[in-house]
């Protein structure tokens, strides 16, 4: 039995998440990954912006930083650049990371700074009551898309890959074993790493979109996830409406704080 309490601020429970929300599932996988990697709690900094997922840092016993809406990566960049030995992990939602924080998202990836970002993608603004986000699927209902969304949605993993991330993976709240493994890989990767986790929000998304129960939503995740290995053998028609899971991208590129360390050596005449 895994000892979650080792990493939790138990006094801060119960958490604020709704019944059936998948954010707690992601938190559990994150703690298991940190434990697997044997990271010192003193050396982990968990940074977030604003939203449901961004309340995660409050519950864990690391150095925790709950910042302004969309800006988690900007603060995290300051932490990592100032103290590169720290393990900096960012948790963010789809609205936080790709709407108001979209600029920081693409530039953290471009810079390839050694930060792991876990993006809780529930297709909706949950905390503010169900408004459409940049990942709300075309046609889906939201409080600000009462006739169905007419905007195409972002593919956030492809966005990170194109912007320059070293490691990009996707999973769901249903696939907890895979999620833990991907978190381990992402945190171990030198450079900017993204794990997009598709997660259910029964309260703000499901009940507007014919997915009334958390079970319906988890089944949807299971039925629509296609492992990258299987996807490689499928036609675009067969993949229509589905999403790929697993490691989507994994390359080695120069990392920002490493590059800056070399710059310091050069500027200070040490090399």
């Amino acid at each position: 039995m895994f000892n979650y309490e080792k990493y939790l601020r138990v006094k801060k429970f119960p958490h604020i998440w709704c019944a059936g929300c998948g954010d707690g599932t992601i938190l559990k996988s994150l703690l298991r990954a940190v434990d697997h990697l044997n990271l010192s709690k003193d050396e982990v900094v968990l940074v977030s912006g604003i939203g449901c997922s961004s309340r995660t840092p409050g519950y864990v016993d690391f150095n925790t930083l709950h910042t302004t809406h969309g800006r988690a990566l900007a603060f995290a960049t300051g932490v990592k650049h100032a103290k590169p030995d720290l393990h900096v992990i960012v948790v963010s939602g789809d609205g936080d990371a790709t709407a108001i924080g979209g600029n920081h998202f693409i530039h953290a990836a471009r810079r390839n700074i050694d930060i792991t970002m876990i993006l809780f993608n529930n297709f909706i603004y949950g905390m503010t009551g169900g408004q459409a986000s940049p990942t709300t699927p075309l046609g889906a209902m939201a409080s600000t898309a009462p006739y169905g969304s007419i905007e195409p949605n972002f593919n956030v993993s492809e966005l990170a890959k194109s912007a320059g991330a070293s490691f990009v993976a996707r999973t769901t709240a249903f696939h907890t074993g895979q999620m833990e493994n991907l978190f381990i890989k992402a945190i171990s990767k030198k450079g900017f790493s993204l794990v997009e986790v598709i997660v259910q929000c029964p309260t703000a998304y499901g009940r507007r979109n014919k997915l009334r129960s958390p079970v319906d939503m988890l089944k949807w995740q299971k039925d629509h996830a296609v492992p990258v290995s299987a996807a490689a053998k499928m036609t675009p028609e067969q993949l229509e409406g589905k999403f790929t899971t697993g490691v989507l991208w994994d390359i080695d590129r120069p990392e920002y704080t490493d590059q800056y360390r070399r710059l310091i050596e050069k500027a200070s005449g040490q090399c």
Partner: protein
Amino acid sequence: MSNKIKPVFVQGNHACVLGALKAGCRFFAGYPITPSSEIAEILAIELPKIGGRFIQMEDEIAAMGAVIGASLTGMKALTATSGPGFSLKQENIGYAVMTEVPCVIVNVQRGGMSTGLPTQSAQGDVLQSRWGTHGDHEIIVLTPSTIPEIYRLTIRAFNLAEKYRTPVILLLDEIIGHMREVLVEYDDADVERIERVRPDCPPDQYLPFKPDETDIPPMADFGSGYRYHVTGLCHDETGFPTNDPVKIDKMMQRLNRKISRYTDDIVEYQLDGNSDAPVLLMAYGSSARSARQALRIGDERGISMSLFQPLTIWPFPETAFQAAAAGKKKIIVVEANAGQMKREIERLVNRDIQVQLIGSLNGEPIHPEKILLAAGEVG
């Protein structure tokens, strides 16, 4: 020995960099903007030479966020900007106030609103520097007027930020940011460098927002073994969010009190000229240079005046100003805006005293003759 230090002929933005480095600043995050970019450009060269860190962020908001993140690890951190960027930084400046993270923000003012006059001067951000972020808060804002003053007040800005765990705004303007004067840097031995108070209790007993009698809680560096939570939400002494009105009130009152109760330590001003004169000038930043010139010419022409120059503009040196204003016939507020501090001055002085604005909105320095004309009207 300070007499061994060679004088340098530098622009104000460069003096700001030299002051920051002297104060112990080792982190800068910024975004290109006229007329402050020299601060970023010079620090991009100088910081890595001494193991410090420079980063050009993707936007102004990110630069402010990165500075706060760096400060949380224990580094003295700086950002520099001008009007449009200052507007963009406001939300995160409020975050630094709320979470009590020391940092310094330089605003080299230019003409506004909007894109305004990027290469010309103004002092239109005086009230924004006081009230730019949302919510009720106290803030420290310094207004130098010469290159040596920029150097000294940049060092002071870092010291006040560390001492009071607060963002400090250094309000320059394009005129003094870009003009050059002689500067003699301080000898290291002569420089007071204040560091934030760090906790000395065992980590499991650390309450990050519980102050002692000073009202300023000790601040631990991220990664130093004191694991704690930082949030922009209203929080209690443990650092975690609360909706308890008693705890919220306690925190909000303390955040304001921790600046207001130290006003005497924070404010600096300079009083010059003939204190018995019927006319008092009030000017700061580059406008204080115009006022000082008017004072000199006035002396030759027999127009007697005195000059009150706040070097700390927020909190305003109210008591000292009221003493200087007592018995005057006229106060002339010289500022390159439409009267932002004039309203503050009217609030502070007896209604019998005439308060006149010599302002400017066209990007040009204020001509001393305008001041002399207004002063000469007093018999």
